């Protein structure tokens, strides 16, 4: 199977990252990981991923903030971002709110846990949309 796109996964839950990484690699994606938003931004610079899967609740720099920075940078604005989080659409948190999520302009939004097939379908759709616009 030919190597597919490179995905950057940013999540502080290392166990979840490990499992998802294996699944995505099994589907022939190249996966790089980062454990917080700050490291995530550095990896974006270094690895130039085709797509980013982003958690919301993370130390140092949370997902919404990282997404905002990406989308305000013309260099990275093209990279599709998939927010993948256990913070559901309606979960109230004092630190993270839905409104912040909206301002991030993430390209897609999914809730943990997610079936691998569903995740792959979402990833493929985003990449397809991306190729189409280019």
């Amino acid at each position, binding site marked *: 199977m030919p190597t597919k796109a490179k995905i950057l996964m940013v999540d502080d*839950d290392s*166990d*979840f990252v*490990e*499992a*998802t990484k*294996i*699944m995505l690699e*099994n589907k022939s994606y190249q996966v790089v990981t980062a454990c917080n938003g700050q490291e995530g931004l550095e990896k974006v610079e270094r690895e130039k991923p085709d797509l980013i899967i982003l958690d919301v*609740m993370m130390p140092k720099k949370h997902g919404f903030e990282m997404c905002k920075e990406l989308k305000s940078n013309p260099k990275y604005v093209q990279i599709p971002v998939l*927010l993948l989080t*256990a*913070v*559901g*659409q*309606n*979960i*109230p*948190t*004092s*630190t993270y709110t*839905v*409104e912040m*999520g*909206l301002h991030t*302009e*993430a*390209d*897609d*939004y*999914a*809730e*943990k*846990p*997610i*079936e*691998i097939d*569903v995740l792959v379908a979402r990833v493929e759709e985003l990449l397809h949309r991306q190729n189409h616009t280019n």
Partner: protein
Amino acid sequence: MLNNFSKTLQGLETSPYPKEPAIGEAELIARINWLIRLRWIAVVGVLFIIWLTHNVLDLNLPILSLTLIAIFLALYNFCFWFYARYFMFKKTSAVLVKIAGRMVDFQIFLDLLSLTLLLHFSGGVENPFIFYFIFHMIIASILLSARASYFQATIATILFVLLVTLEYNDIIPHYCLTRYIGADLHKNKLYIMGISGVFITTIYLSVFMATSISKKLREKERLLHEANNDLKDQDRLKSEYVLRVAHDLKSDLATVQSCLKVVIEGMVGKVNEKQFDMIQRAERRTFNLIHFVKDLLNLSRIKARRDVQITSFSLQELISEAIETTHIRPDSKNITLQINIPPSLPMVNADKTNLEHLFINLIINAVKYTPQKGRVQIEAEEEGNQILVKISDTGIGIPASDIPKIFDEFYRAENAQSVEKDGTGLGLAIVKYIVQIHGGKIWVESEEGKGSCFSFTLPKAPAGMNKRLFIRDQPEHTPPVRDSSNASREGY
């Protein structure tokens, strides 16, 4: 996670809900409407008494003037009614409270003036109806503050004294009730002084008594309201606490499930049959637990009334979407799914996400508990200002003894447990709360072995009403792409 948790608990301490005012706007408007209704009765009463005195008692009174006053009474009552009906609710609550107070003040003043004029043309001090001023004092004490009530008592006294004095000194004419009272009482100094004394003390005493009673009642009402608000806050706090715990559980469970999936899918090499079996068992239990936590989250979210966004939409479309997102296929069990919704059915006024959830839960249930070749039917019809929805099936039914408890949290009917062992018992509780936050009612009729019919009411969208209105002030939002993968997996 612990750190996260304590942080969130701090966040829970402040309630996002504003305290409601002591007297609600709805109540204020209701009180004004009450006053207006009373005045219609007064108009009829005045006209009747005019007729009675003229035609039956044969008293010689200026009918025209008295009738004109009655018309004046009716006219200003109409104006107040019109204003209250069409303009008042448009005001913001602070302005409304202010206007309502002034309006009542003004209305009572006009009433006192009308009564004085009526008395003037019908015998003045001789007319026993002078004591009707007491009614106005009691109404003022109920509707207004103590200060405003005493002010009205003073106005009543001034009007009364003015009437009596002017008539006594022949500055204005006196219309004598000759056939009713023999002597010319309006010239009898002692009588006037006696009646004035009794009148004035009665007026002030009735205000004193009525205001002290209403003051005590208002205080009690306020305390009850506060206690009620405290209870609501505590309940909300509890729901948010559960929400938080469930959420933290869910993230960990999601990770556990993903790790097990990696093994089951053979992505990290082969395991032997026994190992595979054990891991699969673990994964299945994790899956059930995730479902349970998800239901718990949904229930708490609804109980905390989070993100309720009311819009108007077509029920037909919503049901089609709900059926599309569920992975339950009725045809796999040869079940006929009938949807009978008349195209003329008005739109509903509800929260779309919650309502979709409600239909998914009930349809999944109906299909789940209906055996092969059965039938599931969804009907909806207009009923007054509501929409009545019925979801019926030819399934296993609910034992009569279970029916009263079927909507309770964590309760599962005995025969349901034999169909599916791992249900959470939260699905119908979620359904009940969703109906309740829309101000509707839900009930079930069922016969064991024959089938069940769940009926509930939803608010109808008012014709020509603004399409979007919100229960709470909330920014309008939708996630970039709806997570439809979720809906299908919310179950029982």
